[in-house]
């Protein structure tokens, strides 16, 4: 496990909103299934004293911390309030902060992440589906039914594409240790490098599937930073330059960050890159077979 396990108490910021309420229900259904703590507290300013699915709601993160043992937070608040939520949690001493919210202005994100770093917190996202360690903990919105426990880590900039890959892996009998959606924005807290570092420390993880896309060069940075065996897939080989492909960060700019050059650099470093998602399970098996 990385970032948390069964014993991690989770706080949800934006607990009384439609998304917050819906996903507290799903996260706690998963916690019940695996015998974990799940979401123990919610925060919505002005709604302290209410309950959501039996989870007590507080006005501030510090209030929640006084009453509960909290190891991680998941944010569902609107874009305009998300940077504030990240900073409030970091300031209160929460060290793992998952930000699901999309469309946060990048200046806000940069500030919030810089501040969280100063407070010693790790931010996953924004604009991400969160993370799931099968059999242990779910922090975010990933559909738990597709996952199975095993020793392959997955890191991805995408949401549904991650589910597709996890579904393929599970069907092929390949379980996952932890699946992390790091987010589709240009500026994100935990990058491939950071998550790979955690996987290196994690005895359960033996290999990693790294799912990238057009924009930037964080995939190559990650792949060259670790000794863990990796299989990669890069989305966007058909993406035209200067067009934002759905994610704020998925854009080929100034002739940089296109899929072909990314794939070439990954391969040059000895990382096998799948041409299709459906090829990934067989390539992972191949990694284990050759023991490299």
């Amino acid at each position, binding site marked *: 496990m990385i970032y948390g396990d069964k014993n991690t108490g989770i706080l949800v910021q934006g607990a009384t909103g439609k998304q917050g309420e819906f996903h507290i229900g799903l996260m706690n259904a998963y916690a019940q299934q695996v015998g974990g703590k799940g979401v123990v507290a919610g925060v919505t300013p002005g709604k302290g004293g209410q309950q959501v699915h039996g989870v007590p709601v507080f006005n501030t993160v510090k209030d929640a911390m006084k009453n509960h043992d909290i190891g991680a937070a998941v944010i569902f608040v609107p874009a305009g309030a998300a940077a504030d939520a990240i900073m409030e949690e970091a300031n209160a001493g929460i060290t793992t902060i998952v930000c699901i919210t999309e469309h946060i202005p990048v200046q806000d994100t940069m*500030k919030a992440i810089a501040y969280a770093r100063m407070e010693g917190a790790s931010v996953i996202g924004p604009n991400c589906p969160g993370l799931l360690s099968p059999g242990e903990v779910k922090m975010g919105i990933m559909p738990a039914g*597709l996952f199975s426990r095993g020793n392959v880590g997955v890191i991805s900039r995408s949401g*549904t594409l991650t589910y597709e890959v996890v579904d393929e892996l599970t069907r092929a009998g390949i379980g996952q240790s932890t699946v992390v959606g790091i987010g*589709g924005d240009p500026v994100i807290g935990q990058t491939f490098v950071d998550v790979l570092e955690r996987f290196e420390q994690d005895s359960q993880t033996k290999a990693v599937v790294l799912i990238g896309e057009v*924009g*930037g060069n*964080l995939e190559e940075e990650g792949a060259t930073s670790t000794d863990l065996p990796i299989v990669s897939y890069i989305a966007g*080989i*058909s993406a035209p330059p200067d067009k934002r492909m759905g994610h704020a960060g998925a854009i080929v700019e100034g002739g940089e960050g296109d899929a072909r050059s990314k794939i070439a650099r990954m391969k040059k470093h000895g990382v096998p890159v799948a041409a299709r998602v*459906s090829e990934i399970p067989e390539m992972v098996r191949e990694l284990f077979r050759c023991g490299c």
Partner: protein
Amino acid sequence: MKLREHEAKNVLKAAGIPVPAGFLIRSADELTPHLEELGSAFVLKAQVDVGGRGKAGGILMADKATGTRVARELFAKQIKGLPVKEVLAEQKLDIRHEYYLSITVDRSSKCPLLLFTEAGGIEIEITAKEHPELIRKVVASPLLRDLPPFMIRELIGTAPKEIGPVINKLFRIFIEKDTILAEINPLVTTPDGVVAADAKIIVDDNALGRQGITVNRDLSLREREAETHGFSYVELDGKIGVIGNGAGLTMATLDLIEFYGGKAANFLDVGGGAESERVMHAVRLVASVPAVKVIVVNLLGGITKCDEVAKGIIAAGISQKVIVRLAGTNEAEGRRLLSEKGYEMLDTMDIVVKKAVEVTA
């Protein structure tokens, strides 16, 4: 969204960065009252939303005698297919030296990145490739309001000190105006001081609202319509329409089309929550592109309700063939609804895409 040159220069001017004296005109006749002030020689620059306008003939030199005629010539032009509706008439500068200055969002450090080079005026990508040692870089914390003087000294090196305040002012603009790129190229020295001869500012699409920008000009009409429904939409030049949920999965679907030798006509990410009405709008929008011969719908997600999606596809009632891959809840009901109306619902994205490519081949 990219600001036009005159808009970007207004932003600089308001922040106290000197720009050339200039006037925005909407016809050649509007130039007449400004001829005196512009001096003997000046520049006419077409304000079009397209890169590389200089090479495309969008920037012309003129003087008092030829001004109106040259302006007329420019207004009659199409620059890379775009009509010229506005022209910036600017004084010609007595340039001593050209510098390059920019601030961008650096994904690796998650901070503003400042670039400065004394070899300005040409494309920075070329300098970066051929003489990377000439570009000085400084990463600044996004928590700073002003740059500490040492950072400015590190950037400008032996260049004139008067450039320093320009750098700090641009840094303020970068943060306060929600830009993802603020670039002055060239920043020039003249006998009258430092001047921003050209400027490029790109505002974060996620901050247009709070910057008071109501229409994103970078988007086509169809892209704007998509935006009102909360879709991400990109136009391409093939025959296969693509609808997916999630940017990554939709991109992977496009790539798979290319893998099997086909070409996508567009990219539509319906985003989260695929209720029947959203799906209907998505299908109609994608089908409204004349080149689209077949539509691939690839939706996956634990909480996507397949019956809702099926109802949306049926309600769209379009003439083109729709091939569907759905995974989620109520799969059996979705399949039943679709097959009743003669639509194909297949199991994997490989099969769906292969089929669509066959149809258009």
